[in-house]
């Protein structure tokens, strides 16, 4: 069964999407946070009339513009790729997934693109107040667009508010609000946007510290440091809080992701959280029935994982093997059972389609099944697992392990993200305190740390998406659709060609963007603002 699937096509399609998404995410977080910081600065300028604040505003606004262009350029690629590379997905869930994309365009993109034009070309042409409003609306528009695409992403991880319609062979929306306000969507939006705020704050703080190291634009730099570190501290606290609630959400909606994040093979009560760890060779990917927990080294926080996941130190956190092989004591159904049930649901759909034309009685009977909530919860719920079915029980058991994501990638990405997040908060506090004490200029070590934390911010941000997206594999729609059945039927060579074309384009754009950005930073803010 699985042997007949063209893995090359799936892998290249996944690679292309991952490449685009990660490249896009190099630019978006800065836009999300810098927009607000520029708006704060301009607000102070309008309130005080102090031209120094206009200078501040215009310098950061220019960097915002350079960065914004490339975010726009890469965002459209993602939208197209849902159709070009994941066409079966686009049909299977398009009734739900298309709506946020359209709303994003109508509500957010027009707001962004209209007011960014006023922000850049309106100086002197529109009133100060209108200009300031435009700057705020640009920042809000950027974050609104993040809202809708993150709602869409959260829905893929925790599909809600829909029902499968066998006549059209797709999922259809039955509640807009359940999609918009699902716990996953709220967590995802808050956690992701605040991560953008933190990154942008580190960017502004790092560059300002570099000016201090070079003894240039001292007042400018100190003011920027205050704005960014205060913004950074508030954002970091929100980031940690929403990270915590995201973990609880994952524990219930995607237990396999949580197990992979912690490289937890065998479930435990009073499970400890690994603070730092190094995975050994023997439990590397892919996971097999023989895989065992193997750490070369680790430091644990006792009971913390159970508490983090379920707010109860005695709670049982299932491991990878509990999830795959099942654990009766804790009511966990084994994957091979889920696969059988999913297969049954898929067969029911096939039978329905067959009967639709020729046998109205049978059609009616099966159609009723797809309406039956109990059948939905016991069979349709595992629809996607059916792709892993094999009549040979031994092969089926092996296939079940193919539903485990890459453990090392999930584990390291998660721990790098969390560790760096703590470092960021500490750094913001230290820098702000030193600035208030008026000692920041002499602390060269701290200044250099702030400069070198800029790339770390990008690493943490990318790691976050790796946790979210690698950890949920192979699911495109959790439990309902694996990547293999989402992909467009095109030859893998076409995808390979576009992958490399994108890769070359992205490298070229990134080089140009970084060099332009560095040059502008080097030039620094100008008197009078531009």
């Amino acid at each position, binding site marked *: 069964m699985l042997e007949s699937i063209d893995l090359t096509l799936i892998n290249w399609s996944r690679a292309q999407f991952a490449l685009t998404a990660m490249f896009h995410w190099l630019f978006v977080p800065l836009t999300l946070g810098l927009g607000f910081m520029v708006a704060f600065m301009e607000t102070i300028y309008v309130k005080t009339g102090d031209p120094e604040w206009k200078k501040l505003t215009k310098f950061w606004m220019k960097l915002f513009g350079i960065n914004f262009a490339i975010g726009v350029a890469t965002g459209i690629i993602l939208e197209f790729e849902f159709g070009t590379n994941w066409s079966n997905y686009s049909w299977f869930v398009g009734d739900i997934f298309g709506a946020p*994309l359209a709303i994003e365009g*109508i509500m957010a*993109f027009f707001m962004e*693109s209209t007011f960014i034009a006023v922000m850049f070309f309106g100086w002197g042409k529109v009133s100060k107040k209108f200009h300031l409003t435009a700057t705020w609306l640009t920042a809000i528009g950027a974050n609104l667009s993040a809202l809708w695409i993150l709602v869409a992403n959260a829905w893929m991880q925790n599909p809600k508010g829909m029902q499968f319609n066998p006549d*059209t062979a797709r999922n259809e929306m039955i509640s807009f609000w359940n999609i918009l306000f699902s716990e996953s969507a709220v967590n995802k939006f808050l956690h992701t946007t605040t991560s953008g705020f933190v990154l942008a704050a580190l960017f502004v703080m790092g560059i300002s510290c570099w000016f201090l190291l070079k003894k240039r634009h001292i007042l400018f730099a100190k003011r920027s440091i205050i704005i960014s570190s205060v913004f950074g501290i508030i954002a970091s606290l929100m980031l940690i809080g929403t990270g915590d609630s995201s973990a609880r959400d994952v524990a219930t909606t995607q237990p396999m992701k949580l197990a992979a994040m912690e490289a937890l093979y065998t479930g435990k009560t009073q499970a400890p959280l690994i603070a730092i760890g190094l995975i050994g060779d023997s439990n590397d990917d892919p996971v097999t029935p023989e895989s065992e927990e193997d750490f070369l080294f680790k430091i644990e926080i006792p009971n913390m994982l159970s508490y983090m996941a379920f707010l109860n130190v005695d709670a049982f956190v299932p491991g990878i093997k509990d999830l795959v092989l099942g654990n009766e004591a804790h009511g966990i159904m084994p994957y091979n059972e889920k696969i059988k049930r999913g297969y049954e649901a898929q067969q029911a759909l096939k039978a329905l389609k067959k009967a639709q034309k020729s046998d109205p009685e049978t059609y009616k009977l099966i159609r009723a099944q797809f309406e039956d909530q109990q059948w939905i919860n016991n069979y349709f719920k595992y629809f996607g697992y059916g792709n892993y079915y094999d009549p040979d029980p031994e092969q089926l058991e092996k296939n079940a392990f193919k539903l485990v994501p890459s453990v090392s990638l999930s584990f390291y990405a998660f721990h790098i993200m969390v560790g760096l997040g703590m470092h960021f908060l500490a750094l913001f506090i230290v820098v702000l305190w030193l600035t208030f004490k008026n000692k920041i200029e002499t602390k060269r070590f701290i200044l250099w740390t702030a400069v070198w934390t800029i790339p770390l911010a990008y690493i943490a941000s990318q790691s976050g998406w790796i946790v979210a997206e690698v950890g949920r594999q192979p699911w495109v729609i959790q439990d309902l659709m694996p990547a293999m059945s989402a992909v467009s039927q095109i030859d893998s060579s076409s995808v390979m060609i576009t992958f490399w074309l994108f890769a070359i384009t992205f490298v070229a754009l990134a080089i140009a963007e970084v060099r332009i950005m560095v040059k502008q930073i080097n030039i620094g803010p100008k008197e009078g603002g*531009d």
Partner: protein
Amino acid sequence: MFETLSHLALQQYWWIIISLLGAFLVFLMFVQGGQTLINTIGKSDIEKTMLINTLGRKWEFTFTTLVTFGGAFFASFPLFYSTSFGGAYWVWMIILFAFVIQAIAYEFRTRQNNVFGPKTYELFLFINGFIGTIFIGTAVATFFTGSPFSVNELNQSRWETPFHGLEAALNLHNLSLGLTVFFLARVLGLLYFMNSIDDESIFTRARKHLLYNAVPFVVFFLTFTIWLMLRDGFAVNPNTEEVFMEPFKYFNNLLTMPIVTILFLGGVVLVLWGIISSLITTNTSGIWFSGTGTILTVFSLLLLAGFNNTAFYPSTHGDMQSSLTIMNASSSHFTLTAMSYVSLLVPFVLGYIWHAWKSINNTKITKDEMSSDDIHIY
């Protein structure tokens, strides 16, 4: 209020919105047309800078309209999105690349250390203008001429040629629309230059080239339209949903829908009047006539493709029944209802775009402004 509408009424409402978005997109492609004329109309560096800056203040509207057109099409007719994007892979990829390079070109062109030099970014703008218009025009023509795909009982689609959409360029009828859009975009671009820039030599040159571009535009437009009126079209039996060929289908659609005919003819007259009035007088409002005319004409053409029991994305590969109609390709009643509420925001969006556009364009671009320190210059 939308809940009470029938599924068909919602499908029609959304086809109207898609058609309107498509119509605005073609109008806004004056940016693309203008981009192909920068070296023709701008003879000195400062002139080129003026041309690029006047387009640069508008390119994001076109871009955003394209993105929204895609998103709205996905949300309202997802089967079109999955079938066409997943099937005509190369066409959409080429359009995509043409727009990716546009998005950075304006911002990066004059920045120091931009690695590839201003000429490269100007080339990006040219490529975007050339490919963006011709390919989008050609792709839209397949709404009338059809594409080689099939859709199975699970609504999963397959493209039946290895060229994945590029075969559309071999059809002369498709190409005639591609070239129509290309020359129309150039005409609109010239009219926009004449309207937004206060410079004698640019004005004179733009007017001269207006004639050179208007002639091929009219020729290709007539070729496309006459051919369309004469060809067989993909009709749908509303009771059985069966698709069949009907002689003079699109001409019949015009006869059956007199309002569409009026919009279409009115649009054509306005486009021509915008051109002619700019050629014979020195007034600069041609863009508003031709722009409005473009919107009306494209709008009515798209209505012809989807209304009056017509398949808007026909399948030509033996399996005509795979053709997409606004009935079989649409989202569910619930989703269309939800989206219809969102569509109520559109007038509000148009309102603030209009306000912002006016506040920036209330003074024309001059040479002096290009050396101003206070404003963002591309």
